[in-house]
Protein backbone atom coordinates (compact mmCIF):
# COMPACT_ATOMS: atom_id res chain seq x y z
CA UNK A 1 0.00 0.00 0.00
CA UNK A 2 1.57 3.29 -1.05
CA UNK A 3 1.42 6.54 0.97
CA UNK A 4 -0.80 7.98 -1.74
CA UNK A 5 -1.88 7.49 -5.34
CA UNK A 6 -1.70 10.04 -8.15
CA UNK A 7 -4.01 12.76 -6.84
CA UNK A 8 -2.44 13.06 -3.40
CA UNK A 9 -3.36 12.61 0.25
CA UNK A 10 -5.69 15.60 0.64
CA UNK A 11 -7.71 14.76 -2.46
CA UNK A 12 -8.05 11.11 -1.41
CA UNK A 13 -9.08 12.21 2.07
CA UNK A 14 -11.80 14.54 0.79
CA UNK A 15 -13.05 11.95 -1.65
CA UNK A 16 -13.65 9.53 1.23
CA UNK A 17 -15.48 12.16 3.31
CA UNK A 18 -17.63 13.29 0.36
CA UNK A 19 -17.97 10.17 -1.80
CA UNK A 20 -15.95 7.02 -1.23
CA UNK A 21 -12.45 5.58 -1.42
CA UNK A 22 -10.90 2.12 -1.58
CA UNK A 23 -8.05 1.00 0.68
CA UNK A 24 -6.03 -2.13 0.01
CA UNK A 25 -5.28 -3.25 3.56
CA UNK A 26 -4.18 -6.75 2.60
CA UNK A 27 -1.03 -6.28 4.69
CA UNK A 28 -3.11 -6.70 7.84
CA UNK A 29 -3.34 -9.98 9.73
CA UNK A 30 -6.44 -12.17 9.30
CA UNK A 31 -6.91 -15.41 11.18
CA UNK A 32 -9.71 -17.95 11.68
CA UNK A 33 -9.95 -19.69 15.05
CA UNK A 34 -12.37 -22.56 15.64
CA UNK A 35 -15.07 -21.39 17.99
CA UNK A 36 -14.88 -24.00 20.76
CA UNK A 37 -14.94 -23.72 24.54
CA UNK A 38 -11.32 -24.68 25.14
CA UNK A 39 -9.91 -22.17 22.66
CA UNK A 40 -12.21 -19.41 23.88
CA UNK A 41 -11.14 -19.99 27.46
CA UNK A 42 -7.46 -19.82 26.50
CA UNK A 43 -7.97 -16.65 24.43
CA UNK A 44 -9.82 -15.00 27.33
CA UNK A 45 -6.50 -14.78 29.13
CA UNK A 46 -5.54 -12.09 26.56
CA UNK A 47 -8.84 -10.71 25.24
CA UNK A 48 -11.00 -8.68 27.68
CA UNK A 49 -14.36 -9.89 26.34
CA UNK A 50 -16.71 -12.76 27.23
CA UNK A 51 -15.94 -14.63 24.07
CA UNK A 52 -18.64 -17.27 24.45
CA UNK A 53 -21.24 -14.49 24.57
CA UNK A 54 -20.18 -12.76 21.35
CA UNK A 55 -23.25 -12.33 19.17
CA UNK A 56 -23.14 -14.22 15.89
CA UNK A 57 -22.53 -12.02 12.82
CA UNK A 58 -21.22 -9.14 14.92
CA UNK A 59 -17.73 -7.64 15.22
CA UNK A 60 -16.12 -6.21 18.35
CA UNK A 61 -13.19 -3.90 18.90
CA UNK A 62 -10.83 -5.42 21.45
CA UNK A 63 -7.22 -6.05 22.48
CA UNK A 64 -4.61 -8.62 23.31
CA UNK A 65 -3.34 -7.70 26.79
CA UNK A 66 -0.01 -8.52 28.43
CA UNK A 67 0.33 -9.49 32.10
CA UNK A 68 0.35 -5.80 33.15
CA UNK A 69 -2.76 -5.01 31.15
CA UNK A 70 -0.67 -3.29 28.45
CA UNK A 71 -1.83 -3.51 24.86
CA UNK A 72 -0.01 -6.16 22.80
CA UNK A 73 -2.30 -5.25 19.92
CA UNK A 74 -5.73 -3.86 19.17
CA UNK A 75 -7.95 -5.91 16.88
CA UNK A 76 -11.41 -6.60 15.52
CA UNK A 77 -12.87 -9.96 16.56
CA UNK A 78 -15.99 -11.38 14.95
CA UNK A 79 -18.23 -14.39 15.53
CA UNK A 80 -19.10 -15.91 12.17
CA UNK A 81 -19.94 -19.27 10.59
CA UNK A 82 -17.92 -20.27 7.57
CA UNK A 83 -19.21 -23.26 5.60
CA UNK A 84 -21.49 -24.04 8.57
CA UNK A 85 -18.62 -24.15 11.03
CA UNK A 86 -18.40 -21.57 13.85
CA UNK A 87 -15.28 -19.41 13.89
CA UNK A 88 -13.75 -16.36 15.46
CA UNK A 89 -12.43 -14.19 12.63
CA UNK A 90 -9.78 -11.78 13.88
CA UNK A 91 -8.21 -8.87 11.98
CA UNK A 92 -5.03 -7.48 13.56
CA UNK A 93 -2.18 -5.10 12.84
CA UNK A 94 0.48 -6.02 10.29
CA UNK A 95 3.21 -4.68 12.58
CA UNK A 96 2.13 -7.10 15.35
CA UNK A 97 1.71 -10.31 13.34
CA UNK A 98 4.57 -12.09 15.10
CA UNK A 99 3.45 -11.26 18.66
CA UNK A 100 -0.24 -11.88 17.97
CA UNK A 101 0.19 -15.14 16.10
CA UNK A 102 2.35 -16.58 18.85
CA UNK A 103 -0.62 -16.07 21.17
CA UNK A 104 -3.27 -17.27 18.72
CA UNK A 105 -1.35 -20.47 17.94
CA UNK A 106 -0.61 -21.14 21.62
CA UNK A 107 -4.35 -20.92 22.34
CA UNK A 108 -5.57 -22.67 19.20
CA UNK A 109 -2.87 -24.74 17.45
CA UNK A 110 -4.98 -25.19 14.32
CA UNK A 111 -5.72 -21.47 13.92
CA UNK A 112 -5.64 -20.66 10.23
CA UNK A 113 -3.91 -17.51 8.96
CA UNK A 114 -5.81 -16.49 5.83
CA UNK A 115 -4.01 -13.33 4.74
CA UNK A 116 -1.87 -15.18 2.23
CA UNK A 117 -4.91 -16.42 0.34
CA UNK A 118 -7.36 -13.58 1.05
CA UNK A 119 -6.94 -9.89 0.26
CA UNK A 120 -8.56 -7.35 2.55
CA UNK A 121 -10.12 -4.23 1.08
CA UNK A 122 -11.95 -1.38 2.77
CA UNK A 123 -14.37 0.84 0.91
CA UNK A 124 -15.13 3.90 2.99
CA UNK A 125 -17.31 6.96 2.69
CA UNK A 126 -20.99 7.90 2.47
CA UNK A 127 -21.32 6.53 -1.09
CA UNK A 128 -19.65 3.18 -0.38
CA UNK A 129 -23.01 1.42 0.00
CA UNK A 130 -24.07 2.63 -3.45
CA UNK A 131 -20.78 1.64 -5.05
CA UNK A 132 -20.82 -1.79 -3.44
CA UNK A 133 -24.48 -2.79 -3.67
CA UNK A 134 -24.31 -3.02 -7.48
CA UNK A 135 -21.62 -5.64 -7.17
CA UNK A 136 -22.36 -7.54 -3.97
CA UNK A 137 -25.57 -8.48 -2.19
CA UNK A 138 -25.90 -6.41 0.97
CA UNK A 139 -28.87 -7.06 3.26
CA UNK A 140 -31.14 -4.08 3.89
CA UNK A 141 -30.68 -4.14 7.63
CA UNK A 142 -26.89 -4.42 7.79
CA UNK A 143 -25.54 -2.08 10.48
CA UNK A 144 -22.16 -0.86 11.62
CA UNK A 145 -20.09 -3.80 12.93
CA UNK A 146 -22.39 -6.43 11.39
CA UNK A 147 -20.47 -9.13 9.53
CA UNK A 148 -21.62 -11.89 7.17
CA UNK A 149 -20.66 -14.17 4.34
CA UNK A 150 -21.50 -12.83 0.89
CA UNK A 151 -20.54 -13.84 -2.63
CA UNK A 152 -18.52 -12.36 -5.46
CA UNK A 153 -17.33 -14.18 -8.62
CA UNK A 154 -18.84 -17.37 -7.12
CA UNK A 155 -16.38 -17.06 -4.24
CA UNK A 156 -17.39 -16.66 -0.61
CA UNK A 157 -16.23 -13.38 0.87
CA UNK A 158 -16.35 -12.05 4.41
CA UNK A 159 -18.19 -8.74 4.36
CA UNK A 160 -18.35 -6.44 7.37
CA UNK A 161 -19.74 -2.95 7.76
CA UNK A 162 -16.77 -1.33 9.43
CA UNK A 163 -13.65 0.70 8.79
CA UNK A 164 -11.09 3.10 10.12
CA UNK A 165 -12.18 6.48 8.81
CA UNK A 166 -15.20 7.48 10.90
CA UNK A 167 -17.37 7.11 7.79
CA UNK A 168 -19.86 4.46 6.83
CA UNK A 169 -18.13 1.73 4.91
CA UNK A 170 -17.32 -1.92 4.41
CA UNK A 171 -14.39 -4.27 4.68
CA UNK A 172 -14.12 -7.31 2.42
CA UNK A 173 -11.93 -10.34 2.82
CA UNK A 174 -11.80 -11.86 -0.65
CA UNK A 175 -9.82 -14.74 -2.21
CA UNK A 176 -6.75 -13.44 -4.07
CA UNK A 177 -7.93 -14.78 -7.45
CA UNK A 178 -10.99 -12.50 -7.35
CA UNK A 179 -9.29 -9.45 -5.87
CA UNK A 180 -8.30 -7.70 -9.09
CA UNK A 181 -11.78 -8.18 -10.60
CA UNK A 182 -13.39 -6.70 -7.54
CA UNK A 183 -11.18 -3.59 -7.58
CA UNK A 184 -11.77 -3.16 -11.32
CA UNK A 185 -15.52 -3.45 -10.75
CA UNK A 186 -15.47 -0.93 -7.91
CA UNK A 187 -13.38 1.57 -9.87
CA UNK A 188 -15.97 1.59 -12.67
CA UNK A 189 -17.75 4.07 -10.44
CA UNK A 190 -16.18 7.41 -11.36
CA UNK A 191 -16.59 8.90 -7.90
CA UNK A 192 -14.47 6.35 -6.09
CA UNK A 193 -10.68 6.02 -6.10
CA UNK A 194 -7.83 4.07 -4.59
CA UNK A 195 -6.51 5.67 -1.40
CA UNK A 196 -3.20 5.19 0.40
CA UNK A 197 -1.74 5.13 3.90
CA UNK A 198 -1.52 8.93 4.13
CA UNK A 199 -5.24 9.54 3.87
CA UNK A 200 -5.92 6.46 5.97
CA UNK A 201 -3.95 8.16 8.74
CA UNK A 202 -5.52 11.62 8.42
CA UNK A 203 -9.02 10.11 8.23
CA UNK A 204 -8.57 7.96 11.34
CA UNK A 205 -7.00 10.87 13.22
CA UNK A 206 -9.92 13.19 12.43
CA UNK A 207 -12.19 10.39 13.66
CA UNK A 208 -10.14 10.22 16.89
CA UNK A 209 -9.25 6.55 16.34
CA UNK A 210 -6.11 5.11 17.93
CA UNK A 211 -3.18 3.67 15.98
CA UNK A 212 -0.99 0.92 17.40
CA UNK A 213 2.58 2.12 17.98
CA UNK A 214 1.31 5.67 18.53
CA UNK A 215 -1.59 5.90 21.00
CA UNK A 216 -1.24 2.24 21.95
CA UNK A 217 1.70 0.12 23.01
CA UNK A 218 2.65 -2.54 25.58
CA UNK A 219 3.17 0.11 28.30
CA UNK A 220 -0.28 1.64 27.94
CA UNK A 221 -3.49 -0.06 29.11
CA UNK A 222 -6.79 0.38 27.26
CA UNK A 223 -8.02 2.43 30.22
CA UNK A 224 -5.05 4.82 30.03
CA UNK A 225 -5.71 5.08 26.29
CA UNK A 226 -9.28 6.22 26.98
CA UNK A 227 -10.72 2.99 25.58
CA UNK A 228 -12.29 1.49 28.71
CA UNK A 229 -15.61 1.36 26.82
CA UNK A 230 -14.16 -1.56 24.87
CA UNK A 231 -13.50 -3.64 28.00
CA UNK A 232 -16.05 -6.08 29.37
CA UNK A 233 -16.16 -4.87 32.99
CA UNK A 234 -17.12 -8.31 34.34
CA UNK A 235 -13.92 -9.73 32.91
CA UNK A 236 -11.90 -7.31 35.03
CA UNK A 237 -12.93 -9.41 38.07
CA UNK A 238 -11.71 -12.58 36.35
CA UNK A 239 -8.22 -13.74 37.42
CA UNK A 240 -7.88 -15.57 34.09
CA UNK A 241 -7.56 -12.17 32.36
CA UNK A 242 -4.05 -10.75 32.06
CA UNK A 243 -3.62 -7.61 34.19
CA UNK A 244 -7.16 -7.84 35.56
CA UNK A 245 -6.15 -6.44 38.99
CA UNK A 246 -4.24 -3.50 37.47
CA UNK A 247 -7.12 -2.71 35.12
CA UNK A 248 -9.84 -2.83 37.78
CA UNK A 249 -7.69 -0.63 40.06
CA UNK A 250 -7.18 1.85 37.21
CA UNK A 251 -10.90 2.00 36.64
CA UNK A 252 -11.46 3.01 40.28
CA UNK A 253 -8.57 5.43 40.70
CA UNK A 254 -7.36 8.57 38.99
CA UNK A 255 -4.97 7.95 36.12
CA UNK A 256 -1.66 9.78 35.84
CA UNK A 257 -2.18 10.68 32.16
CA UNK A 258 -5.11 11.43 29.91
CA UNK A 259 -5.58 11.29 26.16
CA UNK A 260 -6.45 14.59 24.49
CA UNK A 261 -7.10 16.00 21.06
CA UNK A 262 -5.17 19.11 20.01
CA UNK A 263 -5.63 21.59 17.22
CA UNK A 264 -3.07 24.05 15.96
CA UNK A 265 -3.89 27.77 16.38
CA UNK A 266 -1.79 28.81 13.39
CA UNK A 267 -0.40 27.07 10.35
CA UNK A 268 2.22 25.03 12.17
CA UNK A 269 2.10 21.26 11.86
CA UNK A 270 1.78 19.02 14.90
CA UNK A 271 3.69 15.76 14.57
CA UNK A 272 4.25 12.54 16.48
CA UNK A 273 6.84 12.89 19.28
CA UNK A 274 6.56 16.65 19.84
CA UNK A 275 6.63 17.77 23.47
CA UNK A 276 3.85 19.74 25.19
CA UNK A 277 4.46 22.44 27.82
CA UNK A 278 2.41 24.53 30.22
CA UNK A 279 2.62 28.30 30.75
CA UNK A 280 5.71 27.94 32.94
CA UNK A 281 7.71 25.81 30.54
CA UNK A 282 7.04 22.59 32.44
CA UNK A 283 6.73 19.51 30.28
CA UNK A 284 3.17 18.19 30.56
CA UNK A 285 2.99 15.59 27.80
CA UNK A 286 3.68 14.44 24.28
CA UNK A 287 1.95 14.16 20.93
CA UNK A 288 1.48 10.57 19.72
CA UNK A 289 -0.03 11.31 16.27
CA UNK A 290 -0.33 14.50 14.28
CA UNK A 291 -1.33 15.44 10.76
CA UNK A 292 -2.88 18.08 8.57
CA UNK A 293 -6.66 17.86 8.75
CA UNK A 294 -8.18 18.54 5.33
CA UNK A 295 -11.63 18.95 6.91
CA UNK A 296 -10.52 21.56 9.45
CA UNK A 297 -7.74 23.05 7.31
CA UNK A 298 -5.46 23.01 10.35
CA UNK A 299 -3.07 20.58 11.91
CA UNK A 300 -4.61 18.23 14.49
CA UNK A 301 -3.05 15.80 16.94
CA UNK A 302 -3.71 13.22 19.61
CA UNK A 303 -1.46 13.06 22.65
CA UNK A 304 -1.20 12.29 26.33
CA UNK A 305 -0.88 14.90 29.07
CA UNK A 306 -0.66 14.69 32.87
CA UNK A 307 -4.13 14.31 34.37
CA UNK A 308 -3.43 16.97 37.00
CA UNK A 309 -2.95 19.60 34.29
CA UNK A 310 -5.94 21.94 34.22
CA UNK A 311 -6.96 22.12 30.60
CA UNK A 312 -8.37 25.62 31.03
CA UNK A 313 -4.74 26.76 31.00
CA UNK A 314 -2.84 27.32 27.76
CA UNK A 315 -0.83 24.47 26.21
CA UNK A 316 2.24 24.96 24.06
CA UNK A 317 3.82 22.57 21.60
CA UNK A 318 7.53 22.72 20.82
CA UNK A 319 7.95 22.95 17.05
CA UNK A 320 11.50 23.46 15.77
CA UNK A 321 12.62 24.92 19.13
CA UNK A 322 9.74 27.41 19.22
CA UNK A 323 6.72 27.14 21.51
CA UNK A 324 3.44 27.38 19.61
CA UNK A 325 0.06 27.75 21.31
CA UNK A 326 -2.26 24.78 20.69
CA UNK A 327 -5.88 24.27 21.73
CA UNK A 328 -7.57 21.26 23.30
CA UNK A 329 -10.25 19.82 21.04
CA UNK A 330 -12.69 17.08 21.98
CA UNK A 331 -12.25 13.76 20.17
CA UNK A 332 -13.30 13.02 17.52
CA UNK A 333 -12.42 16.10 15.48
CA UNK A 334 -14.96 15.12 12.82
CA UNK A 335 -18.32 13.55 13.71
CA UNK A 336 -18.56 9.83 13.00
CA UNK A 337 -21.04 8.80 10.38
CA UNK A 338 -21.78 5.13 11.10
CA UNK A 339 -24.97 3.31 10.10
CA UNK A 340 -26.40 2.12 13.38
CA UNK A 341 -29.98 1.23 12.52
CA UNK A 342 -32.66 1.36 9.91
CA UNK A 343 -32.52 0.74 6.22
CA UNK A 344 -29.22 1.29 4.50
CA UNK A 345 -30.83 2.10 1.18
CA UNK A 346 -31.99 5.61 0.48
Amino acid at each position, binding site marked *: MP*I*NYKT*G*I*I*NEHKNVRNHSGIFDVSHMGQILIENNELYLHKLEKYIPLQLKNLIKNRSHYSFLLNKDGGVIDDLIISNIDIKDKPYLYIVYNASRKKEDEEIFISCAPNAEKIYNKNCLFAIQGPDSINVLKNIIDIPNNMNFFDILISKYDNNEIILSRSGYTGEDGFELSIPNESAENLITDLLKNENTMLCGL*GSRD*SLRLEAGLSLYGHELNENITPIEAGLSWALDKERLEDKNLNGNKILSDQLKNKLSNKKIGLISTN*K*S*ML*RDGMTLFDNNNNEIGKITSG*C*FSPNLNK*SIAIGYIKSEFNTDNPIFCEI*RKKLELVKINNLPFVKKNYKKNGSVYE
Partner: protein
Amino acid sequence: MGAYMSEKKYTKDHEWVSIENEIATIGISNHAQESLGDIVFIELPSVGNSVKAKDEICVVESVKAASDIYAPIDGEIIEINNNLENDAAIINQDAENEGWIFKMKISDSNQYSELMSEDEYKQFLEQ
Protein backbone atom coordinates in the same frame (compact mmCIF):
# COMPACT_ATOMS: atom_id res chain seq x y z
CA MET B 1 27.77 41.81 -16.35
CA GLY B 2 24.75 42.85 -18.39
CA ALA B 3 21.13 42.34 -17.55
CA TYR B 4 20.17 38.84 -18.50
CA MET B 5 18.19 35.88 -17.16
CA SER B 6 20.61 33.09 -16.44
CA GLU B 7 20.03 29.41 -17.00
CA LYS B 8 18.26 27.70 -14.09
CA LYS B 9 20.56 25.73 -11.78
CA TYR B 10 19.90 23.15 -9.08
CA THR B 11 21.33 22.10 -5.72
CA LYS B 12 21.67 18.61 -4.28
CA ASP B 13 19.03 19.64 -1.73
CA HIS B 14 16.55 20.07 -4.60
CA GLU B 15 16.39 23.85 -4.73
CA TRP B 16 16.42 25.70 -8.05
CA VAL B 17 18.16 29.03 -8.56
CA SER B 18 17.94 31.51 -11.40
CA ILE B 19 19.82 34.79 -11.54
CA GLU B 20 18.93 38.14 -13.05
CA ASN B 21 21.07 41.23 -12.40
CA GLU B 22 22.81 39.61 -9.44
CA ILE B 23 19.45 38.82 -7.85
CA ALA B 24 18.86 35.11 -7.36
CA THR B 25 15.32 33.67 -7.25
CA ILE B 26 15.03 30.41 -5.35
CA GLY B 27 12.41 27.70 -5.01
CA ILE B 28 12.18 23.94 -4.70
CA SER B 29 12.35 21.70 -7.74
CA ASN B 30 9.36 20.04 -9.30
CA HIS B 31 10.86 16.72 -8.24
CA ALA B 32 11.01 17.93 -4.60
CA GLN B 33 7.41 19.12 -4.78
CA GLU B 34 6.31 15.73 -6.10
CA SER B 35 8.06 13.78 -3.39
CA LEU B 36 6.81 16.05 -0.59
CA GLY B 37 3.19 15.67 -1.70
CA ASP B 38 0.52 18.22 -0.72
CA ILE B 39 2.27 21.26 0.76
CA VAL B 40 0.15 22.87 3.46
CA PHE B 41 2.39 25.48 5.04
CA ILE B 42 5.64 27.29 4.52
CA GLU B 43 7.61 29.18 7.12
CA LEU B 44 9.16 31.92 4.97
CA PRO B 45 12.58 33.45 5.74
CA SER B 46 12.94 37.03 7.05
CA VAL B 47 13.78 39.77 4.59
CA GLY B 48 17.10 41.44 5.44
CA ASN B 49 18.80 38.33 6.80
CA SER B 50 22.28 37.60 5.57
CA VAL B 51 22.81 33.90 5.03
CA LYS B 52 25.56 31.51 4.01
CA ALA B 53 25.23 28.66 1.53
CA LYS B 54 23.81 25.54 3.27
CA ASP B 55 22.16 27.55 6.08
CA GLU B 56 18.67 26.30 6.89
CA ILE B 57 16.54 29.32 6.17
CA CYS B 58 12.96 28.16 5.92
CA VAL B 59 10.72 25.12 6.27
CA VAL B 60 8.16 23.57 3.98
CA GLU B 61 5.49 21.47 5.70
CA SER B 62 3.70 18.90 3.59
CA VAL B 63 1.10 16.37 4.67
CA LYS B 64 3.96 13.87 4.84
CA ALA B 65 6.83 15.72 6.52
CA ALA B 66 8.58 18.96 7.35
CA SER B 67 11.55 19.69 5.15
CA ASP B 68 14.22 22.35 5.43
CA ILE B 69 15.09 24.71 2.62
CA TYR B 70 18.75 25.72 2.48
CA ALA B 71 20.36 28.83 1.11
CA PRO B 72 21.97 27.69 -2.18
CA ILE B 73 24.62 30.44 -2.06
CA ASP B 74 25.80 33.27 0.22
CA GLY B 75 23.78 36.49 0.18
CA GLU B 76 21.05 38.63 1.65
CA ILE B 77 17.32 37.81 1.55
CA ILE B 78 15.66 40.75 -0.17
CA GLU B 79 12.17 39.50 -1.02
CA ILE B 80 9.83 36.64 -0.14
CA ASN B 81 6.83 35.26 -2.03
CA ASN B 82 3.99 36.43 0.21
CA ASN B 83 1.40 34.58 -1.89
CA LEU B 84 2.69 31.36 -0.35
CA GLU B 85 1.70 32.58 3.12
CA ASN B 86 -1.98 32.04 2.25
CA ASP B 87 -1.64 29.27 -0.28
CA ALA B 88 1.46 27.12 -0.02
CA ALA B 89 -0.09 24.69 -2.52
CA ILE B 90 1.07 27.09 -5.27
CA ILE B 91 4.37 25.22 -4.92
CA ASN B 92 2.61 21.96 -5.88
CA GLN B 93 0.97 23.63 -8.87
CA ASP B 94 3.99 25.46 -10.24
CA ALA B 95 7.13 24.79 -8.20
CA GLU B 96 9.61 26.31 -10.63
CA ASN B 97 7.77 29.53 -11.54
CA GLU B 98 4.84 30.92 -9.50
CA GLY B 99 5.99 28.81 -6.56
CA TRP B 100 9.30 30.71 -6.08
CA ILE B 101 10.04 31.14 -2.40
CA PHE B 102 12.55 33.96 -1.92
CA LYS B 103 15.01 36.26 -3.67
CA MET B 104 18.59 36.97 -2.61
CA LYS B 105 21.22 39.52 -3.49
CA ILE B 106 24.18 37.24 -4.01
CA SER B 107 27.73 38.00 -2.98
CA ASP B 108 29.71 35.35 -4.88
CA SER B 109 28.60 34.40 -8.39
CA ASN B 110 31.22 31.62 -8.50
CA GLN B 111 29.05 29.67 -6.06
CA TYR B 112 26.26 29.85 -8.60
CA SER B 113 28.45 28.50 -11.40
CA GLU B 114 29.25 25.47 -9.28
CA LEU B 115 25.59 24.38 -9.01
CA MET B 116 24.15 21.70 -11.29
CA SER B 117 22.67 22.46 -14.69
CA GLU B 118 19.23 21.08 -15.50
CA ASP B 119 20.78 18.08 -17.28
CA GLU B 120 23.18 17.44 -14.43
CA TYR B 121 20.31 17.62 -11.96
CA LYS B 122 18.33 15.09 -14.02
CA GLN B 123 21.30 12.73 -13.94
CA PHE B 124 21.67 13.35 -10.19
CA LEU B 125 18.02 12.32 -9.68
CA GLU B 126 18.56 9.11 -11.62
CA GLN B 127 21.48 8.02 -9.46
